[in-house]
């Protein structure tokens, strides 16, 4: 199964870092979509099939927290795997993300961390097989 992935971050540089890391993982990737805030992310989700969303917290227009709230309120996206990649360091905010079913990765992060979390939340892995 190839993963269609949505990357939502207001920083084009951080989107580049995440997308480069995704390609390094060796995991089966389908389409990668980019949004620069939560509202754009939700619009892409309405138009495309997405298997995994990788989302920042602090963004203009609509932040990551509000985007995740919208996802969890919508039956269609209630179980969508979400990884939050953020420099947010407030434990109560991080705990809140966990309660909403999102896995948190703290910036700065190492590429292997994103790969491990992707495997854990999607169950997809093609490591060392033909």
């Amino acid at each position, binding site marked *: 199964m190839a993963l269609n992935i949505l990357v939502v971050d*207001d*920083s*084009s*540089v*951080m989107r*580049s*870092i995440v997308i*480069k890391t995704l390609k390094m993982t060796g995991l089966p990737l389908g389409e990668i979509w980019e949004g620069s805030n939560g509202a754009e992310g939700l619009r892409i989700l309405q138009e495309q099939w997405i298997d995994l969303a990788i989302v920042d917290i*602090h*963004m*203009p227009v609509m*932040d990551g927290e509000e985007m995740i709230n919208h996802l969890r309120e919508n039956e269609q996206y209630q179980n969508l795997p979400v990884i939050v990649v*953020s*420099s*947010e*360091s*407030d434990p109560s905010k991080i705990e809140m993300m966990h309660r909403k079913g999102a896995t948190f990765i703290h*910036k*700065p*992060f*190492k590429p292997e961390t994103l790969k491990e979390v992707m495997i854990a939340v999607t169950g997809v892995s093609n490591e060392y097989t033909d």
Partner: protein
Amino acid sequence: MNTQIDCDVRAKIERTLYESSVSTFEDTCFMYLAPEMEEEQKELPLEAASEARYRGDWTGKLLIETRGGMLEAIASNILSLDEPSLQQKKDALGEIANIICGNVVISLGRHGRVSKIESPKFLSEEELQTEEDIGSCVAGITLNFFEGRADIKFYVDGYIAAKEQNSD
């Protein structure tokens, strides 16, 4: 505005500022510190600056200034590009400011909840001069790399929660 921050919190902010800056440069930019600053690196002219503002119980900003080729090296390393564009250099520096700011604001303490870190802003030298007057710098570090120098400062403009308490 109440910007009273006690010595322990100041020390904690400075420690976190140093540690998170070093790990951000190592993990995101693949740069490591040079053991000591060469004489000429002390006199390097300002090359670029970027700030990330935060809002919440506390408001303020993190400011990063680069000198001696750091601006290009940061973007080049992050994006694996030999010649990054000016926009890529600005974005890359801004992202570094953003990451470090997110790591440092938590040091403001349990009453220092920050609800928002704004998108980073690249500053011209003129803007930087004006910006310097806003808020108090509570911690500042200079990091010396083989690629150049980074000066990182953490500002606190005001403590909204303290003001509210005072008005009770």
